C-alpha cells in the first residue's frame, strides 16, 4: 500500500473525477478506488466523508437522496458545473507538477 499522505493532496481530484463519470454514493467511491488501483490504495471512510463535506461546502458537488438499499436511503452526489471547472484546473496543475517532479525523479531507478 502506498503512503496515503502523498496521495492526500490529490483526493479532491480523484473523487471529482469519479463523480464526473457518473453520480455515485459513498461506498461506491471507496470500492471504485480500491478496484481501480487494484487495492494498492484504499481510502479510509473517515477521510472520504471529510472530503465530501469539503467539496459540498465549496459547492463542487451536490447531494441528493436516491434509491433505498440495505437499511436506508442512499445519499448520492453529483458534480456541479463549478466542480467540473475546478477539476479541469486540477488536471492542468497536476500535469505541471508531474513534469516538475519528473525532472528530478526520472532516470534514477
Amino acid at each position, binding site marked *: 500500500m502506498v503512503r496515503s499522505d502523498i496521495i492526500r493532496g490529490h483526493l479532491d481530484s480523484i473523487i471529482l473525477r469519479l463523480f464526473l463519470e457518473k453520480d455515485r*454514493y459513498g*461506498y461506491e467511491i471507496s470500492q471504485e478506488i480500491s478496484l481501480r488501483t487494484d487495492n494498492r490504495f484504499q481510502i479510509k*471512510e473517515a477521510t472520504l*466523508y471529510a472530503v465530501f*463535506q469539503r467539496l459540498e461546502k465549496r459547492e463542487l458537488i451536490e447531494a441528493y437522496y436516491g434509491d433505498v*438499499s440495505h*437499511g*436506508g436511503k442512499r445519499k448520492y452526489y453529483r458534480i456541479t458545473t463549478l466542480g467540473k471547472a475546478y477539476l479541469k484546473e486540477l488536471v492542468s496543475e497536476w500535469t505541471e507538477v508531474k513534469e516538475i517532479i519528473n525532472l528530478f525523479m526520472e532516470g534514477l531507478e
Partner: protein
Amino acid sequence: MMKMKNHIDELFKDIPSNNETEMVKQEIMQNLEEKVFYLMEHGKEEDDAINKAIVEFGDIEELKKELGVKQPEKKNMAKLNLEFSIWGSSLIIVFFIFINFYYTPDTIWAIYPIFTILWWPLSMYFVWSRKQ
C-alpha cells in the same frame, strides 16, 4: 448491526449534534451497512465483516475538522502579560522617580527599587519570547 451503531455513536460523541452532523452520521451508517452486506455476500461472517468495516473506517479527526468542531485552543496570554508588566512597571518607576526627586533630590535612591521592579517585565519578556 448494533455493534456498528455503537461504534459510530462513540466516534461522534465529541461532535455536537445538529442537522448537518446527523445527516453525515446517517450517511456513514448507511454506507457502512452497505459495506458489511457486501462483505457478507462475499463470504464473510457478519462479525468479521463488521470488524473489518470498523477497522477500515480510519481516524475521525479529519471529519471533525470539516464539521467545524473546535479544538479547545489555549489563548496566548504571554503577550498580554508582557504588555501589562511593561505598563505596570513603568508606572511604578515613574512614581519612585517622582518621590525621589520631590522629597530627597540630593540622594538618588530610586535606582534600587527600579532595578528590582525591572525583573517583572524582564521575566515576562522571557516567557513571551520563548513562546514565539
